[in-house]
């Protein structure tokens, strides 16, 4: 799963991190890096966050392969990708930590929507408005995005959400009440929903 820290040739080379960081930091200073990314530990495993100059562009859950995520970013956004800190990534990390601790119900981050277009983007924009601890159905999301009969298309919009957790696609369930699929695996979806119910209920008293 964690291709970048286990499979790279660099890990075993003396002084490599200093050499690597020197190149990436100079690339960033000269404006040659388009997408910056970092990976952090979470209660569910390692989460990768990626950002362009416009904002957060990608959140990859532990189920996703980091190398595939970067390849996908290279194809669909930019191949000028480097592992380095940027303020929006630091903010994303802090807010994700707060969310997992039950201390944050709303994300306040600049988002770059470039990885999603058209109806899919409309569905995800509507999904962003579902409050913490609340759920909706795929049919409701299709309707809110303006195409009530496109339930299946709404489902695929949510299945390809480039910004899971921040855009809470885990709050969308099947019409029969069953959980449905999740990018991070069905167990993670259930765990997030339970966490939100617990934390939300406690706070509302």
């Amino acid at each position: 799963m964690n291709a970048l820290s286990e499979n790279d040739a660099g890990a075993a080379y003396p002084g490599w991190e200093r050499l690597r960081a020197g190149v990436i930091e100079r690339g960033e200073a000269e404006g040659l890096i388009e997408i910056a990314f970092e990976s952090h530990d979470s209660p569910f495993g390692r989460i990768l966050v990626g950002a362009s100059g416009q904002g957060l562009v990608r959140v990859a859950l532990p189920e996703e392969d980091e190398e595939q995520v970067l390849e996908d970013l290279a194809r669909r956004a930019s191949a000028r990708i480097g592992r380095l800190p940027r303020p929006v990534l630091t903010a994303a990390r802090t807010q994700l930590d707060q969310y997992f601790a039950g201390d944050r119900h709303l994300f306040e981050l600049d988002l770059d929507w470039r990885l999603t277009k058209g109806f899919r983007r409309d569905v995800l924009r509507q999904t962003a408005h579902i409050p913490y601890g609340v759920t909706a159905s795929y049919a409701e999301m299709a309707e809110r995005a303006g195409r009530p009969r496109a339930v299946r298309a709404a489902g695929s919009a949510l299945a390809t959400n480039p910004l899971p957790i921040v855009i809470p696609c885990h709050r969308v369930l099947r019409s029969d009440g069953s959980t449905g699929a999740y990018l991070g695996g069905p167990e993670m979806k259930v765990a997030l929903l339970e966490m939100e119910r617990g934390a939300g209920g406690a706070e509302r008293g």
Partner: protein
Amino acid sequence: MSQSKGLPPFELMLDRHGPAIHRFLVARVGADRADDCFQETMIAALRAWEGVRDRAKLRSWLFTIAVNKANDSHRAAARAPVPDDGIEARAAAPGSDPVFERVGGGSADPVWDAVGLLPDKQAAAVTLRFRGDLTHREIGEVLGMSEDAARRNVFEGLKRLRADHAERIRDERTV
């Protein structure tokens, strides 16, 4: 990485090929100048990143840049007056790095010093083969020659190194 289409993510390339390129530069220009050469090589690659079309040729493309940066460094060093700080400079190099210790400031390892004395093409071919781990086809792409010519340059270079080494051992014994 080689199975995927399109431009590779820069970071993945850096982690995958960076160490071999740095090792190659240490052998070509010495540890003191290798870090700068390495950064120049990678920044030049990043500037031209959209130019990468064929992933099968990525490695030889990167080493072509590294060979050019090593040549630039040699030319700059030839023009500059030789500073009298060889010992301090070597002492200041990261001593805990086995790579730096072995190769030192371009003179701690007699084998790579001897490679430096080979004719240019043989020296480059031998270094690309044994420090960069390039195939003969890739060496040919980097040095602008056929695969056969690359193989011959590696072979001739090694033959000469063996002959020189045997001679040195003979000399040492007669002293």
